[in-house]
């Protein structure tokens, strides 16, 4: 009975780590760290049949992109490809040489932090067929968004010396005002291939 005389032995806590590890591994495995990411877009509000029709946009200010059911592109009436779409869209919106067939500019307006700037009137119009694959649709959207992002980057670099992503809130707002993202999705209809 020599044992009972002693005070209670400390419980061996060595296996605590093992238990904790076990739990840890379980949570490690079950954790899904995937942050949902994607192309954020805003749909146009529903059409109001009673509202007066908006004035038609001049043909030169519309950059039409059609995608048919075979995932082929028609850019401004010509057969196009994904690789050139971004450059073409950029050229259309910025219109650096003021060509008559590319988008017109609004009258110079004062924008905070940037100064007078001629905002483009250009609208990119995207139309797809019901048979277009979603993959192609996303690729086209991606190129158009990329075109706008590059234009914004250019302006941000010129005025603030930083990329658009790195600007602070007010600066980003100013750039957005100077270069609004005008991608419109036409009312759905079938395009013959």
């Amino acid at each position, binding site marked *: 009975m020599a044992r009972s005389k002693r005070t209670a032995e400390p419980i061996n*806590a*060595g296996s*605590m*780590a093992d238990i*904790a*590890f076990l*739990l*840890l591994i379980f*949570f*490690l495995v*079950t*954790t*899904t*760290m995937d*942050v*949902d*990411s*994607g*192309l*954020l*877009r*805003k*749909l*146009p*509000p*529903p059409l109001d049949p009673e509202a007066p029709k908006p004035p038609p946009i001049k043909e030169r200010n519309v950059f039409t992109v059609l995608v048919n059911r075979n995932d082929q592109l028609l850019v401004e009436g010509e057969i196009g490809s994904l690789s050139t779409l971004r450059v073409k869209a950029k050229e259309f919106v910025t219109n650096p040489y003021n060509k008559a067939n590319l988008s017109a500019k609004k009258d110079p307006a004062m924008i905070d932090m940037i100064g007078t700037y001629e905002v483009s009137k250009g609208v990119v119009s995207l139309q*797809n*067929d*019901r*048979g*277009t*694959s*979603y*993959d192609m*649709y*996303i*690729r086209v*959207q*991606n190129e158009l*968004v*990329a075109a706008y*992002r590059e234009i914004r980057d250019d302006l941000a670099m010129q005025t603030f010396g930083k990329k658009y992503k790195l600007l602070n809130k007010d600066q980003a707002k100013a750039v957005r005002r100077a270069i609004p993202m005008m991608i419109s999705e036409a009312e*759905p209809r079938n395009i013959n291939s």
Partner: protein
Amino acid sequence: MSKFGKKDKGGTPEISTASLPDIVFMLLFFFMVTTVMREVSLKVVVQQPFATEVKKLEKKSLVSYIFIGPPIKGLAATFGTEPRIQLNDAFATVSDLGEFIIAEREARSEKEVPFMTTSLKIDKTVKMGIVTDVKQELRELNALKVNYSTKKGTDITAE
């Protein structure tokens, strides 16, 4: 050499592992807190397309998900291979969207409703027809903020 040399005789002292459980517990709590158990079991295959201009979705609590894709293998026998819409845990049709969006709105406070986003998780093989129908329905419901869920990067299989 005599006074201080004695200590080395016992070899390197054992490192105390007493604090190991604490460290492990810390990690454990971190993962427990960040873990989001999958809320819905997917009944459709969704292989997201790739894009480079992706943005992260913030405020997960304000996002409702719509899945579109062909049914998973086990269900293909009963439901076929045509792309279908999945809302919550069940297959749905475009006409069910209204109920779904309204239910989602009621689950949030009124202030948050304008900031709600609908995330479209769509398989890349899906044709735009069904997507267009969903988009038109969302427009009618005034759920205008959408997110085309994509993975970041470029598709290596692209030409």
